[in-house]
């Protein structure tokens, strides 16, 4: 009990840092709650856990049906991340339910879900909440008769060796994963219209999802590369979720085992699992691919102060600094960051130029339209957190004394008016004089 109180005090003291999942320059230890079906997993998957611990994560292992567990207390979340290694749990102990986990993600925290072939409805429902549909058949597993992993016994080809890995340096690190990744478990499908979910590891075109123990009676519901083995979700608030249908992928056994893909003579000493999950873990826990924009500035050319309002046809400069978090803040370098000058539709769309040190800037002319505009930067890139910056700025028309006093084109009219006045004056004088 005392330990808990202490923990709570520590928690309170680090609250300001926790409230932003990432803000301080020197990161505090981040708390991860690991829910297990069986405490044996703690040792059987220790390699994965150790890699997390070595990256200054504080892991709290609990049994999933522990009646003491809870995600939040007094309106504050107690953990930064949650790992669900409890595929068969029917209902959690304590106050955790689907809504609590959804709320946990919606408040910006990260989640890893691993299911297996006896995944409970509960776990499936959490996955569905995140946009991933596990095969509804409870006994189905992913079977692949062409790209299975060669093992001593012939087996039922449910142990897959997949190398359909997404090519993204930001998600999986710059080092290429040479060995195939071993997978044994249930597959899931994604809704193609859901742009928040990304397949990281997908099955080969010859895979299908069915019960390996019985003969295939009906056509399998999901087949081929529509089957996703490992998926990631980045929610709109940048919370990240990793979902896989195989808990055993994380195990020390799979991390250590060698792999040879069927029909391929190369035998790898080690499977790709360890590298795959270490790198993916870094991504999920925001150790990579997290962009931060600071110092959004705009001002008229030649003036440093930011005005409250622009005038039409002003020349302005816009700049923003973008940094990427990967352990430390580093300048983010890209050539595709664009700014919009937006009022219901973009009036100006410019690519920002970078000085390679994180500063992005551009200069443009305010369009000849007045209204309430926004500087908008909408930056969506695979693996990176979404940058969605908008800053409102009104644009006014000319003031009455900002127009030209005399227009050259109107000189004939000035002349006409003046000559008319003079003529009238002379006429009046003559007329009155002659009376």
């Amino acid at each position, binding site marked *: 009990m005392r330990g808990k109180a202490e923990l709570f005090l520590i928690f309170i003291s680090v609250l300001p840092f926790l409230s932003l999942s990432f803000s301080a320059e020197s990161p505090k230890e981040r708390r991860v709650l690991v829910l297990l079906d069986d405490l044996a997993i703690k040792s059987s998957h220790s390699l994965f856990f150790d890699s997390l611990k070595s990256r200054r994560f504080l892991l709290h292992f609990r049994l999933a049906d522990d009646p003491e567990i809870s995600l939040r207390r007094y309106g504050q979340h107690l953990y930064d991340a949650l790992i669900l290694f409890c595929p068969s749990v029917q209902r959690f102990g304590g106050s955790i339910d689907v809504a609590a986990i959804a709320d946990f993600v919606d408040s910006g925290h990260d989640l890893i879900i691993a299911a297996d072939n006896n995944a409970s409805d509960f776990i499936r429902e959490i996955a569905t909440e995140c946009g991933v549909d596990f095969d509804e058949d409870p006994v189905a597993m992913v079977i692949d008769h062409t790209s299975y992993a060669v093992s001593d016994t012939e087996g039922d080809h449910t142990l897959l060796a997949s190398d359909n890995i997404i090519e993204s340096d930001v998600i999986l690190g710059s080092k290429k994963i040479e060995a195939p990744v071993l997978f044994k478990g249930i597959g899931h499908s994604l809704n193609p219209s859901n742009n*928040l979910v990304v397949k990281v590891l997908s099955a080969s075109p010859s895979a299908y999802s069915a019960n390996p123990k019985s003969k295939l009676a009906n056509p399998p519901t999901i087949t081929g590369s529509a089957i996703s083995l490992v998926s990631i979700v980045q929610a709109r608030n940048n919370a990240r979720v990793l979902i896989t249908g195989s808990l055993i992928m994380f195990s020390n056994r799979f991390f250590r085992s060698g792999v040879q893909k069927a029909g391929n003579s190369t035998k790898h000493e080690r499977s790709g699992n360890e590298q795959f999950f270490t790198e993916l873990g870094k991504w999920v826990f925001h150790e990579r691919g997290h962009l931060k924009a600071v110092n959004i500035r705009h001002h008229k050319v030649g003036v440093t102060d930011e005005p409250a309002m622009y005038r039409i046809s002003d020349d302005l400069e816009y700049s923003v600094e973008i940094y990427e978090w990967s352990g430390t803040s580093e300048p983010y370098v890209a050539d595709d960051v664009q700014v919009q000058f937006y009022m219901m539709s973009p009036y100006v769309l410019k690519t920002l130029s970078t000085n390679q040190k994180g500063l992005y800037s551009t200069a443009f002319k305010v369009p000849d339209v007045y209204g309430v505009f926004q500087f908008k930067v909408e930056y969506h890139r695979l693996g990176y957190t979404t940058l969605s910056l908008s800053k409102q700025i009104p644009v006014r028309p000319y003031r009455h004394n900002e127009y030209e006093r005399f227009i050259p084109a109107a000189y004939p009219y000035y002349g006409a008016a003046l000559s008319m006045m003079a003529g009238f004056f002379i006429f009046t004088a003559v007329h009155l004089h002659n009376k």
Partner: protein
Amino acid sequence: MAGPPEQAPAPGLRYAFGSVLSFFILLLIGVFAFSIRLFSVIKYESVIHEFDPYFNYRVTQFLTKNGIYDFWNWFDDRTWYPLGRVIGGTVYPGLTLTAGTIWWLLNSLNIPLSVETVCVFTAPIFSAFAAWATYLLTKEVKGAGAGLTAAALLAMVPSYISRSVAGSYDNEAVAIFALIFTFYLYIKTLNTGSLFYATLNAIAYFYMVCSWGGYTFIINLIPMHALLCIVTGRYSSRLYVAYAPLVVLGTLLAALVPVVGFNAVMTSEHFASFLVFIIIHVVALVDYIKGSLSPKMFKVAVTLVVSVGLAVCFAVVAVLVALVASSPTMGWSGRSLSLLDPTYASKYIPIIASVSEHQPPTWPSYFMDINVLAFLVPAGIIACFLPLSDASSFVVLYIVTSVYFSGVMVRLMLVLAPAACIMSGIALSEAFDVFTRSIKFQLPGLSGNSEVNAGDGSSSTVVAQNDAAKTDKREDTLKDRPSRKNKKKEKEKEHVEKAPVKSKVKRLLVLPLEASVVALLLIVLLGAFYVVHCVWAAAEAYSAPSIVLTSHSHDGLHVFDDFREAYAWLSHNTDVDDKVASWWDYGYQTTAMANRTVIVDNNTWNNTHIATVGTAMSSPEKAAWEIFNSLDVKYVLVVFGGLVGYPSDDINKFLWMVRIGGGVFPHIKEPDYLRDGQYRIDSQATPTMLNCLMYKLSYYRFVETDGKAFDRVRRTEIGKKYFKLTHFDEVFTTHHWMVRIYKLRPPKNRIRGKTKKPKSKGSSTTSSKRGGTRKKNPWH
């Protein structure tokens, strides 16, 4: 027309007495006009009323804070988001500048009044001015007696009170004064032929242009009158002096007002004045030539000029027609067109038709707004024809046109009211005149007594009589001045005119004494009835500020202060840059009272933008959410009267949202909302109606109030009682549910997979979610 012979001695003393008396009467009329409009302050409080006055108040605040140049160049980014509105260039600045000047004057005299106080009392002050202007105008037409009567009538005419009670800080408050004063100066110029008054007239017209879009009434009525004078052979140099400088100076000055600008020479509303300007010059030229040529030469000249002139005219008219026809609305603004063709707005411009004050009035509203004046006006018109002068023909023309306009739009009843007062003033004063004189004539020995009996009515009419005689004489002398040729004719005419007048006076004088006394009593009774009605109207009907409502029931007075409650909530609980969407009626109030950005407001300049909001309100929740989200809207405000029976709520305005929305976005079809030709919200309502945003936001959780969801405005139980909102959260509902504020939900953080939820768990999660929203709700 001269007074009785007994009165002949000491006329100077009586004039002095009369003018002192009329001065004090006028002073009292002014005080009366001011004080009758204070009911709203006494019964409620010193607040700005209704909708438009809030905008004017906000503009005045800006003016007093930032000065006139910033006001002129004010670009307001808090309305019509994201378009913004150039306030300086789209507002009639007269009222604002007037109140701002009053405030500045008072402050420089170390009288520290708040801007709001000045704004509240601007309208009563100007109604006193308007009463005085009426006196001046009627005096020019029919003498001081008629003037005083007309001023007294105008001081309390309900139609004008409805627009000028304390707190009703709207353009009309000063514009009616400006209107009457401009007319006065026109008549004054017409009577005197003085260029000085003509200049003043142009300046008064400028003030009117600054104040109100109704200035087009002046710039059409005066040309009509000038044309009438020309056609009826009453052209004189006085008419030229009254008319030509007004058009030239007035148009130049009008073009200085930013909101009018080049409209002063570009739109059809102003063409009549230019046309008459040309005609009057032709007539003047003809007149001049006629005077300097022999009759034979003149005939030759006429044929020459007429043939050439016709050709030129034809060319000019052809060009004009081509220019005008090239614009789709023939160069008229929508509002003017709906005046000329009363069915125009309801056919083509729902946004104009949707405003209740743009509807044609009902008969009872005439009796409500001008009461007994409606009966006196015909008598006044008859009096104006005895004899018909330039001035009296003008007021006849004024009343005829304003009766027509008031029949097209309720709002223009306001223009009718001064005309009706002038006419009734003339009628009453003439009637008094006739009756008292007939009494006097039949009791020659008791003339002094009769004067006492009749009170100041008779004395003032005597004064009036003398004044009238004086002006008549002056007119005679003036009329001598014009060209030699006209002189004879005019003299003949005068003889003809005078003869019937004299005979009439004699004929009237034989009225029996009893009949005269009874008639006098009846007139006084009529006047008393009018006064009672006016005071009642001022106290009961027109003093409600409409942001605070009251109702009397068996257990006492109920005050509904929901609007201010809601706006205060907005200003305290939302971010300063948040955008609030509501139907446009509440735009001005939201910006002025809550200081939040609105999408549309009562300045209905952009039909598409209003249609967008109307479409959102008539769409299902998801589509509405998308529309609002694209406009960066954070909160949606609806006004709902179903709980307390407040009839002008958004459900009753809903048909306009559908019509205006459907006019721009054809996927909104009115028949989808109609059952049996009606917008029904009961069990017979169409599915489209039951699923539209306005229905949902109005009736969300309504069933929790009484268990039956009985709508007290529509007097029915609503069609769909239990429903959830999927894209909006209720954040605030006022005490009487009159204003309900909803917040747009942020876009879903996650996108759910397609697998359907297991039944049991699904229901448990939704119920817990509902519990969550209910906890956030301040209501339970």
